[in-house]
């Protein structure tokens, strides 16, 4: 990352080759569209090149920093796309199609991730709705109102589910010594 900040193109390409597949996966989960996910990936790496000097290794790992850039851009893109769909007559339904190419749903992605970092047993204390709410927020970039609508629950309940999921995630990670 420090080489990228020094405008080293070779280092930049190495960073891209090493991380782009994982980052595209993150963007794709939110956008459910490969073309748009690739656009977001490209925009994100434009940011990386232009703002690598602002990366602070004392604050975040490089991958966390990259995931954050990609995820924020994907969330912005999916929300601006929703604005456009809401303001036009003819709708395409790409944004509504939440089935992934590999068939993995948010809940399954959450399960996979928790197993990989070995906190699945700890997180199993959450009920299915709490897990689902957390998964929709993270993997789909949904806000509370979207989650409430998706899970057919009152807004306050959806907020409580997400809150409970986050509390549990924090305590499980701390118990596993994975994060402060």
């Amino acid at each position, binding site marked *: 990352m420090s080489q990228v900040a020094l405008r080293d193109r070779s280092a930049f*390409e190495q960073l*891209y080759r090493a991380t*782009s*597949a*994982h980052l*595209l*996966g*993150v963007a794709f*989960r939110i956008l459910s569209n490969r073309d*748009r*996910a*690739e656009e977001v*990936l*490209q925009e994100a*790496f*434009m940011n990386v090149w232009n703002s690598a000097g602002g990366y602070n290794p004392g*604050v*975040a*790992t490089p*991958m*966390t920093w990259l*995931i*954050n850039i990609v*995820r924020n851009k994907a*969330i912005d893109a999916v929300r*601006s*796309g929703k*604005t*456009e769909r809401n*303001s*036009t*007559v*003819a709708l*395409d339904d790409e944004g509504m199609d939440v089935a992934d*190419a*590999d068939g*993995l749903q948010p809940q399954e*992605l*959450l*399960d*996979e*991730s928790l*197993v*990989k970092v070995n*906190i699945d047993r700890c997180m199993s204390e959450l009920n299915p709705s709490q897990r689902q709410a957390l998964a929709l*927020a*993270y*993997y789909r*970039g*949904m*806000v*509370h109102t979207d989650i409430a609508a998706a899970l057919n629950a009152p807004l306050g309940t959806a907020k409580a589910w*997400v809150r409970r999921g*986050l509390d549990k*995630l*924090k305590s499980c*990670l701390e118990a596993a010594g*994975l*994060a*402060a």
Partner: protein
Amino acid sequence: MNYLLPERLDRLAREYALGTMTGRAKRRFEKLLRDAPPAMHAVAAWQERFSVLAAGVPAMQPREQVWSGLEQRLFTPAKTAARGPLQWLWDLLSVRTLGSALAGIVLCVIVLRSQPGLVGLETPSETLPASYVGLLLDANGKPTVLANSRRHGRQMTVKVLQPLVVPAGKLARLWAFPANGAPFPVAVLPRLPAVKESVSFTLPDESEKLFANVGRLAVSIDDAPARPGDAPPAEFALSGHCVKLW
């Protein structure tokens, strides 16, 4: 309200990092982030926690054009970048056509600024503004159709400024003329409404992909839909410049 109380800050930071914070609350918190290092560290801690949730996301290999496009955007010779955002437009125009192009653009901007509702452009506070705008003139140079679409949109809205006669059994087709490349048919226009009315239709791809290098649009009146690769007709009922506003 003291946002820096540890428990309150942690709650705000996680909402922000997760992406569930929106609107004014988000803007207020972003201001706090700029001014208060503890807020930045609280967000960073949650981002680190959330990164473990990405561990199970299957990788997807991006297509090679993502990297080549990135290289092109970042590392193309400075000469191109220094030429200004509208230089590509001037490249399209010969001295002879410069005057008519300017007239079309000025008229287009006047229409957009004075009556945004006329072309279906909502106020910026409500929706994204149109990016691509084409003002199509008839053979007498009279503005007939105003077309616009959002930068990453797949919808094109066509506003009828004066009647365009499409005989029964025929259809009106929109063509795009890229700066470097063969003209291509964009879409068959839907049945056009009355003057001052608009109609929208779905584009085959995002505007940015279709029109990024397009300097001119035209409408032909044809017997049957064109197939990909078909040559454009010899004559067009309407023709005009396509401008990227932002």
